[in-house]
């Protein structure tokens, strides 16, 4: 409640630069809270810190006077996402296969487990990509 009433007293509009500064400060705040919660071994503190930080950013974002995301940013994000997907999927798949094969020789269960998790992570990434591609393709008129 305190955060919301504080936000309500803020000026209606805010420059993008101010928002970006606040974003950095919030990131530091969340990192500090998570660090403290890890040292105190308190899970709830870290969850509360992250939630407060995210809520603060969402509320502040609505007060920004200016354009944060436009077509160029979306285009760049799309290409960056595809590059990240392509690299991480191939890396996870090969690393997982390598760990699985190497664990067969040594019989190390931990290595086998990590290899299995990486293979499934790779599969999950491909599934999410395929589903989102199918959805967006239909949304933007790609269906016959």
């Amino acid at each position, binding site marked *: 409640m305190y955060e919301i009433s504080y936000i309500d007293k803020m000026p209606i509009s805010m420059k993008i630069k101010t928002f970006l500064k606040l974003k950095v400060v919030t990131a530091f705040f969340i990192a500090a809270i998570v660090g403290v919660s890890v040292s105190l071994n308190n899970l709830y503190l870290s969850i509360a810190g992250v939630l407060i930080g995210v809520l603060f950013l969402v509320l502040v974002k609505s007060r920004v006077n*200016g*354009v944060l995301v*436009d*077509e*160029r*940013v979306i285009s760049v994000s799309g290409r960056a996402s595809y590059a990240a997907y392509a690299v991480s999927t191939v890396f996870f798949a090969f690393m997982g296969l390598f760990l699985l094969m190497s664990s067969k020789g040594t019989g190390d269960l931990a290595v086998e487990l990590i290899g299995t998790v990486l293979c499934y992570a790779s599969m999950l990434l491909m599934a999410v990509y395929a589903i989102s591609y199918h959805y967006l393709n239909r949304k933007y008129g790609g269906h016959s």
Partner: protein
Amino acid sequence: MAAIHNRIKVLRAEFGMTQEDLAQKTGVTRQTIFAVEHNKYVPSLELAFKIASVFKQPLENVFNYT
């Protein structure tokens, strides 16, 4: 090799407009206007029409494909 060129910088100067002004009028970031001006980013048809309408020019007077 054919490419899309534009006269945004010249038109901005004629209208006494900054990149920030044009960005506000067209609803994009200043960085996007900079990228379009320097031919680093080809705008969508919608944005191209918006830019042309700000300068009250037909599209082909602002952008050309050569």
